[in-house]
């Protein structure tokens, strides 16, 4: 036994880590709530700290048996589905920005090579995030670094690579952007899997679930598009 005095039960860090590691394995909110409540109950009875009775949160999370459904949830195919709405939303947003510039200049909408490359880079970053999701969830700094690098590359490509791949009439570009944004919203709603950690006794969701963020997420790209279009139009008007 260690010399330091450990508090009884779970520290917040232990609880959060165990919940995260269970999520990474595909555990449902019900399974996570049950696994955490078991630790609460046992530690209250034995007077032990969670680390003392159950070891590291990761070791405990890996020992919790999951149902077949839960084991299938985080298959690469299921994860790839979640990247599609974001890519559609991003493409729709960038197309909408191109429309604003085209209308200002009175030209057809130009699909620029830099923008297409930027979308390709974001797609690759999304695939990498999904494929190596476990690594990035455990080491958030690595995930942040990947996202920051991809964003920087996107901005550099968008600004630096000249040349136009195609031109399309404004009405076609508006229709395309609207369709892509609508697809991102619909697909996000289809894939929405809130499944909060729930108390096994009462079935109540944990109060830590972020309901507002979850409700806004499907509308992220339309919101950003609206803001961006307004901003670009304002800059064009003053220029």
């Amino acid at each position, binding site marked *: 036994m260690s010399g330091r005095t450990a508090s009884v039960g779970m520290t917040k860090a232990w609880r959060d880590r165990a919940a995260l590691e269970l999520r990474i394995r595909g555990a449902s909110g019900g399974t996570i709530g049950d*696994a955490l409540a*078991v630790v609460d*109950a046992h*530690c209250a009875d034995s007077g032990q700290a969670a680390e003392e009775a*159950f070891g590291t949160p990761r070791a405990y999370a890996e*020992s919790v048996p999951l149902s077949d459904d839960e084991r299938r949830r985080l298959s690469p195919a299921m994860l790839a589905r979640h990247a599609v709405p974001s890519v559609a939303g991003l493409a729709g947003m960038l197309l909408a920005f191109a429309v604003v510039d085209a209308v200002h200049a009175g030209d057809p909408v130009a699909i620029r090579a830099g923008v297409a490359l930027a979308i390709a880079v974001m797609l690759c970053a999304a695939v990498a995030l999904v494929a190596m999701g476990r690594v990035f969830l455990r080491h958030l700094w690595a995930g942040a670094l990947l996202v920051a690098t991809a964003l920087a590359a996107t901005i550099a490509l968008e600004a630096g690579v000249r040349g136009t791949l195609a031109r399309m009439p404004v009405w076609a570009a508006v229709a395309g952007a609207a369709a892509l944004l609508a697809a991102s919203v619909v697909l996000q709603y289809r894939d929405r899997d809130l499944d909060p950690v729930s108390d096994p006794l009462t079935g109540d969701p944990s109060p830590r679930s972020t309901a507002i963020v979850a409700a806004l997420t499907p509308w992220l790209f339309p919101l950003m598009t609206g803001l961006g279009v307004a901003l670009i139009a304002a800059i064009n008007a003053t220029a």
Partner: protein
Amino acid sequence: MTENPYPSEWLRGVLGLAVLRVIADGPTYGYAIALALADQGFGEIKGGTLYPLLGRFEESGDVSAEWREGDGGPGRKYYRLTESGRRLLHDRGRMWHGFARHMSGFLTTMPTERIER
């Protein structure tokens, strides 16, 4: 905590059956199971060992579980032996009995003639 008089690798093999045997006395919760096992010479069974084992018995349908309100503290998860768990305990219990008898005979009968030669 009760001293553990037996090698831990022996205990590991029979722990699952012993857990089923404790639950056979009636629905009970994890910490009470750990205390009953300590009384039977298992020493301190860590939560990290006991609950995954109980979880696997739940998955296989040998044990069912239900949460009950705790008095003052957090709720407790009570485990109950199912019919399939009862059969498993009965069958494996009999096997264990035969195994122990066989091994006792094997381990304690010395080849005296060969040593003398």
